[in-house]
């Protein structure tokens, strides 16, 4: 009779545990050993058309604006369908951080994201640089459309598509007099009445530092102290849809938000207006870029998509719908007299503009500080 070697339950589980550890370590090793891919090359010869292009877009009215102003004329002109990926920009960034360094194809051909994200992603090499030869409309843009230069950012890795402000929006049925100063919202009568973004963007530290008499990034304590004092008045913090809902439902009759959300609240029937307080408002941009690691044909046609987006015709419809001043000098814009949509030198004097390199370098600390105060 054969002698059977005893492997008890504990022994079995021990071996299984060891196996799990080996799998985990091997998996981690494989991950860290992944090599970056070679950079995509683009030729100026016309490559075959793909069946479709995938564009990352914010959903709802944002996607509708892009569809009407850019995708529709693009499809009519080139016969290429456009599909949308509504993955949140920061979540898509996390996906691309896994895919692009591993040499894999990203999920979107054209990424429509914030300029802060585009700036960071360009530094990481996620964007295929655009040329004025392939994207002729780049030559028709204001200087502000060109990316801020620094190490890793040269030429057109992305293009700033339009500007937007973080204005003071309010419910006209509750706030009878439009606030002239940001300081008005510190009044205790606005207890649990203020809404803003969940990382403070557009308000803290941009506005608070200015109100506190400090400077970014060296002397921000007075601004943080002001935010701490405002805390009892803050009803909630959230993302774009939450801020729109906040205005519509009246959860926050006063908000620091981009006017696009206030316009959306108006479309839903809420009595909403907005103003630029005398201290000014934060101004930022959104951007477009063509992803890296795409097949050559998709890279080419993605650039053509950006070309349509930045053309005078595309910008006129797209930016009008969004309520954001266009970057194309020849585009028209109906709200050009409203300082919340800056188009003139006088408007720009009231804008609080922080360089994107400063934002990228310090944003994590600012967000953490905001979270600390809100906790």
């Amino acid at each position, binding site marked *: 009779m054969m002698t059977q070697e005893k492997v008890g339950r504990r022994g079995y589980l021990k071996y299984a545990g060891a196996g799990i550890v080996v799998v985990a370590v091997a*998996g981690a090793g494989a991950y860290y050993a992944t090599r970056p891919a070679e950079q995509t090359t683009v030729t100026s010869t016309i490559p075959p058309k793909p069946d479709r292009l995938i564009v990352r877009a914010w959903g709802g009215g944002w996607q509708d604006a892009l569809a009407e102003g850019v995708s529709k004329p693009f499809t009519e002109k080139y016969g290429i369908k456009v599909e949308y990926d509504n993955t949140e920009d920061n979540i898509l960034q996390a996906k691309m951080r896994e895919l692009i360094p591993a040499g894999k194809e990203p999920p979107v051909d054209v990424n429509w994201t914030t300029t802060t994200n585009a700036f960071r992603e360009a530094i990481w090499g996620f964007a295929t640089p655009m040329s004025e030869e392939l994207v002729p409309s780049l030559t028709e843009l204001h200087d502000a459309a060109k990316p801020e230069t620094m190490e890793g950012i040269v030429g057109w890795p992305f293009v700033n598509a339009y500007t937007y402000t973080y204005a003071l929006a309010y419910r006209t049925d509750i706030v009878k007099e439009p606030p002239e100063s940001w300081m008005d919202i510190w009044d205790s009568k606005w207890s649990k009445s203020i809404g803003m973004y969940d990382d403070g963007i557009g308000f803290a530290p941009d506005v608070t530092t200015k109100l506190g008499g400090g400077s970014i990034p060296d002397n921000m304590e007075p601004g943080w102290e002001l935010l701490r004092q405002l805390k009892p008045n803050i009803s909630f913090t959230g993302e774009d849809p939450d801020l729109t809902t906040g205005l519509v439902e*009246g959860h926050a009759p006063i908000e620091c938000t981009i006017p696009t959300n206030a316009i959306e609240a108006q479309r839903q029937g809420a009595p909403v207006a907005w103003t630029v307080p005398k201290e000014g408002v934060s101004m930022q941009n959104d951007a477009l870029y063509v992803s890296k690691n795409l097949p050559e044909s998709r890279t080419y046609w993605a650039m053509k998509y950006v070309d349509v987006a930045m053309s005078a015709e595309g910008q006129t419809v797209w930016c009008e719908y969004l309520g954001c001043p266009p970057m194309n000098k020849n585009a028209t814009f109906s709200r050009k007299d409203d300082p919340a949509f800056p188009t003139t030198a006088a408007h720009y004097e009231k804008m609080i503009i922080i360089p994107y390199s400063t934002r990228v370098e310090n944003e*994590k600390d600012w967000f953490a500080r905001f979270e600390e105060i809100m906790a």
Partner: protein
Amino acid sequence: MASIEWKAIDLLLFLKKFIPKTFYGKIAYFLLLPGIVTVGFLAVGLVYLGSYSIFKFDPYHMVVYTLTSENYVLLLTNPAYLTIFVRTLKISLIASASSIVLGFFYAYFTVRTRSSILQKILLTSLFVPFFTGDVIRVYGWLIVLGKNGFVSYVSKMIWGHGAELIFTETAVVIGLTQVLLPLAVLMIAPAITAIRRDLEFAAMNLGANEFRTLVYVVVPLSKPGLIAAFVTTFTIGVTAFAEPDILGGGRADFAANVVFKFMFNAGAYPQAAAFCILITLVASLVVFVVLKRIGLGTMMYTRTGR
């Protein structure tokens, strides 16, 4: 149909010939494989998290592969993050306890009712929430608890002013309790089913009223279900995201919300990973202490061979 089953059994018997006889006693262990694979994936994720948590954050490159303890030091020394930790545990415990108390009576009534129609209604009501996502249920509460919602309306009728429930910890407790309640009922109901009704009658025959019978007979015998309900609801509660996000409105963040903001708003993967590791350790510790001090819940059945 039957012939297919027999063919399958014949095939298994045929394949059995290729298994060395020394393995016969251990075949059952192979049934653990799916569990091991699942735990293996979890382990891979934890290894990633663990490794990220000890690397440095860099604003341009996000992660720099230089070892550091600063992520843990930051989280353990900053009062704001400790507040969020304590809030996460506190609200999870309250919501878990609330769902267990409410779930106990719901389960008891469902099991003991003599009306089959009522029993079916209660069971259907229990499963309906599973057909909708957490986010939808929580949005429902946003409407109910909102400034112009039902609760505020009733409050105005009675006291002349609206209730300020939305974007508070109370709103999160309410929303989380509702999400956890069906899970608690599902865990407790089998334990109550296993209690023989005769034992309750015996207690009452000996002079115990219904309340004493409940406290001294039904509750102690339901312990396996109650423990299982606690472990399930507490661990799910600790990882809640939608409830604090939507009903807390950034004013009652849980650990998961902070992890999300660290990761997706700031790209601070190392801090996010450190936060994940800490909350996993703390939640595991709470569950370990409960299991060690009170018992193994439903697992007791297998241990005692009942």
